[in-house]
């Protein structure tokens, strides 16, 4: 396959600076509401601040890929004497937890770095964090070409995993027939 140049966008998280205000969750959910900024619901945010206040854990994590299965072994980390729960650093929307799933539909959410046309200078959560916890970075890498998966595809995949191909096809056919 051909090599193409791809811009990799990441958000570096300086968790030591996080004060746990959750402004990132607020702005993310507002930006991704339809129409934009019409509603706020941190449970829909694609970034979540994992918080255990008395353990000094404030950890912003943004949503990664959806995964249909729980993982085999789970990791616990002790860093600076703080024990992090299993799943703390994991970005996946997965069957074992509610995180990064739309609270109404249960469909997985994924951070899209606030893709828009024209593009934003930086994702909204980075802009909203006045304590410089979230640092936006771009770098160019050569990667093998592959088809980008759309948000609809991601959502459908989750439905297929849950209900099987046939049921989803049937449902779509039924909807189409009804017009």
């Amino acid at each position, binding site marked *: 396959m051909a090599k193409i140049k791809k811009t990799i966008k990441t958000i570096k998280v300086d968790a030591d600076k996080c004060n746990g*205000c959750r*402004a990132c969750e607020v702005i993310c959910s507002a930006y991704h509401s339809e129409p934009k*900024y*019409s*509603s706020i619901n941190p449970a829909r945010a694609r970034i979540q601040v994992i*918080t255990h206040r008395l353990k000094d854990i404030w950890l912003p994590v943004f949503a990664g890929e959806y995964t249909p299965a729980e993982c085999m072994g789970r990791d616990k980390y002790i860093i600076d004497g703080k024990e992090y729960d299993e799943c703390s650093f994991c970005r996946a929307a997965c069957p074992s937890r509610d995180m990064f799933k739309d609270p109404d539909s249960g469909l997985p959410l994924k951070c899209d770095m606030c893709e828009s046309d024209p593009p934003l200078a930086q994702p909204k959560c980075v802009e909203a964090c006045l304590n410089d916890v979230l640092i936006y970075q771009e770098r160019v890498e050569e990667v093998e070409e592959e088809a980008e998966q759309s948000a609809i595809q991601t959502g459908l995949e989750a439905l297929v995993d849950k209900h099987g191909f046939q049921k989803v096809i049937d449902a779509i056919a039924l909807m189409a027939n009804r017009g």
Partner: protein
Amino acid sequence: MRYAETGYNLEIDLTTGSIERVETDPKMTDLHLGGLGTSVKIHWDRVSPEVKAFDPENLLIFSTGLLCGTPAFSANRTLVSFVSPQTDLLAYPMMGGFWSSELKYAGYDKVIIRGKSPKLVYIWIHNDKVEIRDATHLKGKGALETQELIREELKDPKAQVAAIGLAGENRVFVASIEQSRSSSARGGGGAVMGDKGLKAIAVRGTKDVNLARGAEFMVQVQEMTKFIKHRNENPLKEVMPIMSGLGSPQMMKHIDEKWHTESFAWGNARVRRKDFWTEEIDKNWTKSQTEAIKRFVSCFNCPQQCGALICHEDVPPYLMKCFSKLTYAMAAYVDDLDFSWRICKKAFEYGLDSFSTPQILAFAVELYEAGIFTDKDFEGCPTDKEGRFYWLLDKLARREGIGDYLADGTYWAARRIGKGAEAFDHNTTKKHEQMNIKLGMLDPLYFLMFATNEKISITQIEGNWPQAPFPSKEARQSFVDDWPQLPDEKFKKYFLDWEPRGENSNPYYPTPEISSEIVDWMEMLHNIDDALGLCAGMGSFCFKPAYHIHNYPKFISAAMGVDMDEESLKKIVNRSRNLHRAFNNRRGMTRADEKPPQDHWKHRFPELEEKLLTTYYEFKGWNYDGIPTRKRLHELDLDYVADDLEQRGILKDGQD
């Protein structure tokens, strides 16, 4: 669709265990906005003046503000309102933290609690699912500890929990409600909660809060972001560091406490130590504070960092904010800041107000020194300052021995103890402990604020106007040059003319008329913040704040899809403010109660003080007794209040 608000309240009767989700009347939002405004209306309608704090009919309302849960910075206040066991008037202590936004996301604007549960319970609100759960296993647990235990029990680390400690369970009149890094402390909400058999309210919400004109709203947020960045990078140069920034005083960040420790009074609000802040203190406190603070902590959606995670030696970690850092140490005459980190953890677990409690403990020490409390009363009490405070704190929270008196607060304790103890209750107004300040010359602004504020706490009326005139003309000029928050240009002249000495100085300047304008403006800002659920540290309790009279209407308009201007906003908060006053008038509050502590200033001016009060009452549209006149009430669409006050003989026909 309802915007900014959810349009639903949760009504819970703890006697019967009934839980109702009740749609609210949008007209109430038009008339009172939300937060304190709509809560006051509910108290007026449903709590008759005969109801006492510990009657089942006393409502305990946990309210969000109109903007809580929206992207408006620092809109995170939970306003708790109830008839106070200490003052017998409406108290409305508020807390920051994370609870109110969570309640909005669960789909409710308020939780209205009535009745009493036969056994200790807690309430679990998870969107549409609301349960009253057994809490007997949490009896006696700390207010902070309880929050963690409930989160574990519910297996939901995202649940936000407001809880009481042992003091609340024991109906201590100065018991607080604790939540994350905040407390709803003044006036004894914890005692009312404990009396109702309610240990905690846990809430988790995953629903939407809607904005009518979201894009327009975000333009306001963006502008404010720029302002906050600017203010954070450019602290005000004319004032001391502790007052130079945004937020409630950044007492976790700033170590230099020269201003508080030297201007405020130590012990039972007695002694000013004008040479306290030495190099050595500075060195010791720097070490103590930097070692104790593990991390700075914010409330929901706020960029400022007024709180901190405290990890001091063997004290289990906890969150602290603001002035509690100083109150216990100053009341106990302890110069070692380490004492604060230790005793605050204990006091927060008990769930006690950090303003009132230290003064009550210092009052007890004075009574002992005066021989009113005897060796027998103090049997088992250590003799060192620190040890004495820990011992007294335990007694008070447990209502053991003399602690049973102390638990009722300075005013009531003094009257129950007798033997001349009344003379040591020198720092209360309307039976409530006031800020520990003792000064020389009467200040007309502060006279009015201490006398008339419905919260009965100076921090809930003061704020935008500097506490004292600046000595240098240049500093005054540079301060007014950039002051867009003012409601009117004429205030600049008032400030420029105000001098530390001479004709234009306290107590005769600002004049009663000018004082009325300034105090009314500052109070109005607090009332707006309390309706919107905004932190006073970003608005009413801060020099040159982010929120002010010129931008509040823009936030409200965009959030709700209305077109509100400054005048209509002023009218709404004036309406709620007068309803609030009428509620207290109906409970017997009148001019005779409106007095600052007698020794607040050394130099008093009885005639001038009478004139100040009368002028201010007239400015507010209140009669000589401090009751809103029919004319004023009519202007504010409160004819039903005038009727009620007349029927009760509080407002006399034809008097106005």
